[in-house]
């Protein structure tokens, strides 16, 4: 079932001469784990802003085409109505956090929903725990490290338990183990709670194994749309400069040298298993 559907979506920021996204027609199904990627400046963040109504309601500008999110026509809805369905974790956590304590920041969205106090308490604790920052609950967000701030930003969106969660490079400031933990949290939200995930990410090596759907944008357009396996082996992806994981690259290098592994691997485990088989068989 489609949870996001756009048709010929084109958007131009106020004062800009050229649209930032052009004729975007995509379908995202409920429960999908989508990686949205493409060169910097290609329109990924702009597209995400359409999903939660920041475009056109906050940024103004000119939006053409159709966009339906969680059954709601974005053009007719206010941001706060969409916010019940769509949570956005900003690329730069400093643009999102503002309260005097982590706990208050995480509770803010729920306060706006007028949630009863007890339930709010539970939700906040749960979100802090899921993001692994329970011990930071009393700290002022602006004193935290970039990585810790990213976790707070995730927790504050998580607390709202949205149907769709959009994360704009949510781990860019985190060390690899920290990033992996966040991806695992996101994966759990996706697999256990059925939350649809849209992850804007360049580091496909870390995220690829969780996704079932990859969308590649270039110069405002959607240029590739398919499963990770399809995208990572396509010549177009290489030409656009999608960061093919090394696990898949090794497969490609071997293929160029006349060694064909049985299937296209997306993760290190898959590559290792295929190699093990090849090394034993021959």
């Amino acid at each position, binding site marked *: 079932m489609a949870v996001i559907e756009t048709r010929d979506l084109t958007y131009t920021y106020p004062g800009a001469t050229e649209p930032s996204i052009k004729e975007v027609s995509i379908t995202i199904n409920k429960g999908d784990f989508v990686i949205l990627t493409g060169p*910097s400046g290609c329109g990924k963040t702009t597209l995400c802003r359409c999903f939660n109504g920041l475009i056109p309601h906050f940024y103004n500008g000119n939006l053409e085409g159709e966009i339906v999110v969680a059954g709601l026509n974005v053009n007719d809805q206010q941001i706060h109505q969409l916010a019940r369905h769509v949570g956005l974790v900003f690329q730069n956590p400093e643009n999102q956090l503002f309260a005097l304590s982590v706990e208050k920041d995480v509770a803010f969205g729920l306060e706006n929903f007028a949630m009863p106090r007890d339930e709010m308490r539970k939700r906040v604790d749960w979100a802090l725990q899921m993001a692994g920052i329970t011990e930071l609950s009393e700290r002022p967000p602006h004193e935290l490290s970039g990585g810790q701030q990213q976790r707070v930003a995730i927790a504050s969106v998580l607390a709202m338990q949205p149907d769709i969660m959009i994360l704009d490079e949510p781990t*860019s400031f*985190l060390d*690899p*183990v920290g990033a992996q933990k966040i991806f695992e949290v996101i994966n759990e939200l996706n697999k256990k709670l059925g939350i649809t995930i849209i992850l804007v990410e360049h580091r496909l090596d870390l995220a690829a194994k969780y996704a079932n759907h990859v969308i590649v944008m270039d110069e405002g357009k959607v240029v590739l749309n398919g499963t990770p396996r399809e995208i990572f082996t396509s010549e177009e992806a290489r030409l656009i400069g999608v960061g093919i994981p090394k696990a898949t690259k090794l497969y490609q290098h071997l293929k160029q040298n006349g060694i064909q592994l049985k299937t296209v691997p997306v993760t*290190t485990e898959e590559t290792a298993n295929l190699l093990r088989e090849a090394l034993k068989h*021959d």
Partner: protein
Amino acid sequence: MIEAKDLHFSYPTGIEALRGINLTINDGEFLAVMGQNGAGKTTLVKHFNGLLKPTKGEVRVNGVSTRDVSVAKLARNVGFVFQNPDHQLFSETVEEEIAFALKNFGFEEAVIEKQVDWALNLLEITKYRKTSPFMLSGGERKRVALASILAWDPQVIILDEPTIGQDYQQKEKLQQFILQLNAQKKTVVVVTHDVEFVAECNPRVILMSQGKILAEGIAEEILTNQKLVAQASIVPPQITQIFLELADLGLPTNVIDVHEATKILLDRLRERQ
């Protein structure tokens, strides 16, 4: 040359971020500083251009203690590109941003113009020269921040997480470009979590943990040492992960590069045919 001797640093809040760092960075060296969030990486490199001064111990840049020189003076030799470009950018246009430091250093108008053009071109942001940096994407802002430092041609370039928000092609270019700076005998210090980036550049690496240096060596040694890597909250490069997985088949476990990996596998597979 940059030397840190028994460097300690505590923030006013009392948090001890650096606890006895001893480190020498030679001229023309390429160094990657890695380690978990909060290990003290950024705090350490902020000492190299005097943004922070040691609480105890000292840092010497070209033989002079950073306590005795202003940041403005150190900056001429040591350029610092912040992790978050929004902490650095403030001008109305990209062009003005890049010209700012050059003006402060008192370069002639003609030189400024030439350097600005050069830096815009290098980072592929010429088309944004009249645009406000704040209209640009995160990755593009990062390139503006880098251009504004490179424009005055400092001897030492410190990059705090340069690959964040950069797409693959930009990352490849950045990598070429860092290697090129290094080939020109510039000293390059990169703070990064990006193991794949480090695996491809193979610089000298220092691993930090809890305000101390946990280990140092070339990337190939450090990134393939499972114990160290885990201690520093790093995941080994994908190629290393694959080879570690296949160690029982007699494959080497110290491989970080995809080309080297391909060669080893081809030899093994062909041998068997």
